[in-house]
Every structure is written in C-alpha cells, then in structure tokens.
C-alpha cells in the first residue's frame, strides 16, 4: 500500500516536469517551423543559380553585397559556394555549378580550351600584396616580389604561409617563385618556415597573423580584414601582382543542365555600368580606398 502513496507524489512532480518539457519542445517546434516559413520565399519553387566563387571575393563581403540586388532584379535564388579557384573549376567541370568567378588567367584559359567554359569575362581587378609582421624579420620591405621571395628562400629568416589550395592566389604565388628562379617542389620542401595552409584567403590571413608570418594576399581581402589581423603591407609594387577577377559561364554543350539564360543574366549584371560603379565604390567608405577596380569585360592594362 505504501507503494501507492509514492506513486501519487511522483505523479505531481512528474506532471510539472512534463509540462516544462512540453513548453520547451513547443518553442523548438515553433522555431523550427517558423524559421522555415520566413526563410523560404512566399512564391512557388524558385529557380536557383549556383555560383562557385573564389574565396577572396567572398571574404571581402562583395558577394553578400551584390547577391540581394541580383536576386531581386531577376527573381531568382543565388547560391554562392565558397571555394578556392581550384575547387571552383572542379565544380564547373562536374557541372555542379552554373557560373564560376575566379582569378587565375592560366587556369581559366585552360578551362575554356577544354570546353568547359564559354568565355572569360573580366569584371574587376586589384593587386596582390605581400603582407607580413611590422618587424619585418626577413628585411624584404620595399623589394620587388621576386627579390623578396629570393631573400626569404636564402635567409629563411621569416615564415611564409601559403594558400596551398590551387587557388588563384596560390597560382600567383607559384608564378612569383618561378620568376624568382625556383622550382615550386623545392620551395614546398624548403623547410618548416614554409607553411601550406590549405584554407581560404581570410583564414590564411588569420593564420599568418597568429604566426607573425608573411603571406600573399589580394588587396580586397586584406583591407576587409584590417582590424582582425596584425599584419602590414610589405611588398606592394610589381607588374606580376596584377589580380584580375573573371566570370565564366559553364558550357551548356558539355553540361546541358547549366542554367544558361540566368547565367548570362549574371554576367550582364556584373558588367553593367550600374553594378560596375557599385563594385568600384565598394568598401571606400569603410576602408578609405577601393577594394576592387571595375574593368567591364576588358582585360586591364
């Protein structure tokens, strides 16, 4: 009989806890369903256009800025995939995206030659720079990029963080090593001062800052990360540092699923005078200088 009394007491406490749990679950469910309703557009299934972008365009926030404008104008959902140039090109070859925006001329031309891309349309440019610790342990400030790399290699007096991910920036870095007279494989195994990160531009800058090392970065991303990293421009003059961003539509002849019309819309959008103007002005207010210089479809310089 005493067993029954315990049952009753447990019953009340049980009821209170159960009610609390039900309330919490209700909140979760409302959150789950409510957010679904607000996140998805009220209109029926929208067309989705997929763009694989190089990380430097993403980390600067440029895409975040342009995305809503394009979506509203063409009533389409834009899916921006964060990838290095190498990965973006691979997505393009598999037909998993409709447009790629990258910045490695050699790779882009090969991509088109292989038939995966229709045409490369440059739409903006800026410059690379070698950034590093203010103390400049390797003493390379003011040199040309090739000379700076040579000095790094010879003295091994400072660390260098490489993108290491076949991105446009990484390709540029490799090109500089070649100009400086080194085989890239040799560079990779040169010593522990050479660090292969395998990450996007923003994360690479953070790593270089942590390690107080040098790295190659585009101006746009570096400026937008100004407050977050403890690095200063070390080398910023040199023809080889030109950095051109192009958009390429994935070739519908090779990848018939490509949303060719909407993709072409995106290209027109990017080179349209209005948007070109916006690209040119992007970041001026916050950073005091241009992050990107528009070039409306033509190769700069």
């Amino acid at each position: 009989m005493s067993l029954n009394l315990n049952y009753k007491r447990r019953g009340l406490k049980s009821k209170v806890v159960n009610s609390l749990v039900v309330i919490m679950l209700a909140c979760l469910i409302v959150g789950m369903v409510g957010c679904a309703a607000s996140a998805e557009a009220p209109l029926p299934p929208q067309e989705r256009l997929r763009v694989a972008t190089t990380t430097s365009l993403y980390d600067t926030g440029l895409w975040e800025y342009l995305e809503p404008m394009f979506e509203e104008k063409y009533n389409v959902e834009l899916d921006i995939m964060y990838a290095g140039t190498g990965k973006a090109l691979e997505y393009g070859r598999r037909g998993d995206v409709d447009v790629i925006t990258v910045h490695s001329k050699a790779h882009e031309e090969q991509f088109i030659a292989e038939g995966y891309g229709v045409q490369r349309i440059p739409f903006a440019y800026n410059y690379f720079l070698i950034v590093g610790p203010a103390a400049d342990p390797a003493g390379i400030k003011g040199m040309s990029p090739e000379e700076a790399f040579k000095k790094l290699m010879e003295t091994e007096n400072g660390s260098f963080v490489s993108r290491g991910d076949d991105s446009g920036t990484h390709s540029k870095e490799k090109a500089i090593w070649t100009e400086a007279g080194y085989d890239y494989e040799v560079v990779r195994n040169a010593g522990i001062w050479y660090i292969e990160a395998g990450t996007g531009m923003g994360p690479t800058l953070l790593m270089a800052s942590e390690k107080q090392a040098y790295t190659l970065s585009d101006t746009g991303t570096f400026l937008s990360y100004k407050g977050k990293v403890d690095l200063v421009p070390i080398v910023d003059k040199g023809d080889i540092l030109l950095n051109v961003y192009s958009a390429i539509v994935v070739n519908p002849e090779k990848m018939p699923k490509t949303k060719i019309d909407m993709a072409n819309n995106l290209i027109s959008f990017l080179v349209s005078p209005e948007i070109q103007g916006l690209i040119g002005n992007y970041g001026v207010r916050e950073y005091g200088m241009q992050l990107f210089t528009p070039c409306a479809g033509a190769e700069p310089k």
Partner: protein
Amino acid sequence: MIEIWHGLTKAIELIISLDPEVLEIAGRSLRISVASTFLASLLCIPLSSLIHFHRFPGKRILINLIQTFFSIPTVAIGLFVFVLFSRAGPLGGLNLLFTPTVMVLGQMILITPILLGLTISALSGVDKAILDTARSLGASGFQTAVVVLREARFAVTAAVIMGFGRAISEVGLALMVGGNIRGFTRVITTAISLETSKGDLELSIALGIILIFIALVVNIALNRIQQR
C-alpha cells in the same frame, strides 16, 4: 580570454534579441536532423527486428559490419554522397546536390549503422522468456516483434537519441554535400566552422550555445518518454 568573454556576452545578446540569421540557421539544423533521425528510425527499427528475429547465413558478419560503421568518418560518407549526387554522378539527374534534401539523405546514411546496431542490441537484451510467452499466446511474428520492441523501448529510445546527436553535431557531411550556402543549406555546425575560420567568434559561440541547448531539450524530452 577577453575575446571569449566578449563572445559570450555578444552571444547572449544575439540569442535574446532573436537575431533572425541565428534563428534561421538553428531552425534549419533542427529541421534537417529531426527529419533524418525520424526517417532513419522509421526504416531501421523494422529492419533491426527483421535482422534480429531471423536466422540466416552471415548474420554474425552483418552485425559485426554494422558495429564497425558506428564511427565511420563523416567526411567519408560526405565524399560518397557527393560523388553520388553530383551532376556528373549517377544520381546527378535528381539535381539534389547542395540542397537540404541531400543533407537529410546523407545524415540518414550516417546514422543508420548506429540505429541498426543499437536497436538490435536492445532487442537482444530482452529475456527469451518474453518471446516464448508471446508466441505461446498465439502472437504472430509481427505481434511478437512489437511486444519485444516495447519491452526494449528504453534502449531503443537511447539508440534514437544517439542517432539524433550524431546527425545534428556533424560537420563533414553537411559541408561537403550541402555547400554551406547562406540562407539555404547553412546549418549550425557548418556556420560555426566558417565563422570561426573567418575569425568571427561571437557568432560561433552563440551558435554553439544554441546547439547545446537544442541537444539538451531533445535529450530531456526523449528521456521522459523513456521513463514511461
């Protein structure tokens, strides 16, 4: 240390003010993982019963295999699903890559070994006397399976809880097949991964706290069901 403190306070701000981006990401995490756990359970509980109650050659090996896959790396499954659903792949025609749907499918594959293995284990723990009693009372094969499952409900619920935990907390698969697209396939774990690598710790910490909160509530709720 100061950053962590700053992060915590900003995090609480974001949560209390019901920041729309945070809520959107959290809601999506919950939807995808609840869906995958629910669908996988629907499939795996009957399948576990079939495996457990029947004798067939290779049964021992099958169960060992299932247990081996308990801790398969999420990136491995991610890679497999990616190659499967890529437009260049066999199921590319379905156009499911980089959508929440393929994330649900991927998570289902991920947690199936756990659900199968732990449910079979739960069923094995039920006294044979229960089985014999049910059969002797004239229960059909299906009715017997149901009653044994009910006897094992505590352990079966634990299996579901484990499955949900693994689904909602993994990153590798969500990143590879979902693509972490803002506003479409970004979930708590992939957002934390991205924001941390970009250096925005406040948002990451906020999302981390929410993830733990969700896990706690679901756990407690399922726990109450267990007690019954």
